[in-house]
């Protein structure tokens, strides 16, 4: 059974189509790039998978279940926005995750903070925007989840941290888990992807494995993206 299945998924805001008739089957153990320009519906799709938005039509099933408490236990989601409050210390938010997620590995989170030189005793309020994003990514990747949904995980951080983050993503997920990475910074993440899904104006225009693109079309994902989404 696919870890994420959606059929006929649409989200309309009035007459504007944020997502239209999306059909996808994402398998276990894959790293999938959800690629598209700004406003193509990537965030909307991920929000629906997390139960943060209700679809207008169609269904999403995660491990065979509609988004709800049971799916939230196995999905680790990194939203685009920073959601950290301003009164906790880094160590407090680690404790918070430990309290609510049975699969949160606090030791792993501590190691990652150490590698990125983040002091667990710092207040979240005092962190820079980039550091907050790193903390959030650590929180998300320190979970031993079945499905990771990462919305622009490398958008706000410097290139050096970008490499560390991508390596973290590859290293820290087990072989059974699936990672969905939404981004428009394709060149940076291309090397870690197994599959790609191209979204345009809320519709899926291409789903393929990366190997297939390289072998049969003879181009990189980045080049194909530039071709498909040429302005």
């Amino acid at each position: 059974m696919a870890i994420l299945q959606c059929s006929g998924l649409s989200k309309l805001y009035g007459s504007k189509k944020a997502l239209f008739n999306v059909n996808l089957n994402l398998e276990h153990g894959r790293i999938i790039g959800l690629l598209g320009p700004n406003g193509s519906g990537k965030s909307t799709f991920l929000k629906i998978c997390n139960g943060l938005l209700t679809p207008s039509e169609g269904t999403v099933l995660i491990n065979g279940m509609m988004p709800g408490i049971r799916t939230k236990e196995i999905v680790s989601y990194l939203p685009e926005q920073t959601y950290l409050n301003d009164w906790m210390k880094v160590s407090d938010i680690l404790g918070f995750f430990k309290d609510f997620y049975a699969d949160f590995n606090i030791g792993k989170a501590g190691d990652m903070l150490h590698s990125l030189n983040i002091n667990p005793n710092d207040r979240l309020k005092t962190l820079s925007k980039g550091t907050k994003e790193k903390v959030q990514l650590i929180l998300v990747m320190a979970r031993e989840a079945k499905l990771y949904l990462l919305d622009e995980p490398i958008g706000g951080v410097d290139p050096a941290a970008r490499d560390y983050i991508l390596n973290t993503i590859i290293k820290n997920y087990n072989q059974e888990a699936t990672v969905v990475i939404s981004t428009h910074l394709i060149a940076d993440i291309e090397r870690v992807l197994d599959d790609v899904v191209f979204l345009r104006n809320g519709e899926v225009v291409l789903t393929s494995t990366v190997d297939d693109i390289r072998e049969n079309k003879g181009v990189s994902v980045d080049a194909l993206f530039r071709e498909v989404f040429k302005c």
Partner: protein
Amino acid sequence: MLGKLMKYEFKATGRVFLPMFGALLIVAAFSRLFVSLSFKVPSAIGIIVSVIMIIGIFVMTFLLTIQRFNKNLLGSEGYLMFTLPVSTDSLIFSKLLTAAVWNIASVIIVFTAISIMAMTGFSFREMAEAIQRLLRSTDITDLNFALYVIEVTVSVLVSLLAGILTLYACMALSLLVNKHRGLFAFGAFVVINILLQTAGSILLVAGGVMNFENIFLKMQLEQQIHMVAILMIVLNFVIAGIFYVVTKLMLKYKLNLD
């Protein structure tokens, strides 16, 4: 999970309330000291500061009741809260019960501060005894008195919950619009209050039409008091129930975080 959510809710709010409560009690104690030492200017200042702090505590309690819901659930922190493996019911109840506790605590602390400042030494026990003496002069029994205390307590608690849920429902209804959510929530609050007033008037008129007044007037005093108290409890319970359902449905189906 409700317990864990409330733990963090108390942590997030306690760091504001506890220092505020502590400061009021200290200022009140100093005011009393200055008064008993007949230091005129310091005692005047102490009392003025205490009064300002009391007003401040009530305003803060009200604002925090709103802010904890609006910021933690409807703001960017909502991304964290709504992706936790907890039910929407737990999220609402953790906010509601914590806010109710702080509202009650604020009243108790303010009463305590006033009784510290009042030279006569105000005590709840004396007040209860005074009320009891007053009631003894009528034909109300001890059993009835105990029932009144329970009824009034329940009535106050239910109306507190109904009040907080009204605020939550107004904020949750603002999910229907994309812009000017604060203004919309305020408008919803005004409209809801007008509707509740109208509904109240209609109930009164309906009561008049059904000749309820005559039945009521024929009852004994103690029955009348029970009647009013229970009616208040039931009405507030219904209001609380309606706004709870509105809040829950909005959060479940109309959530749209920026």
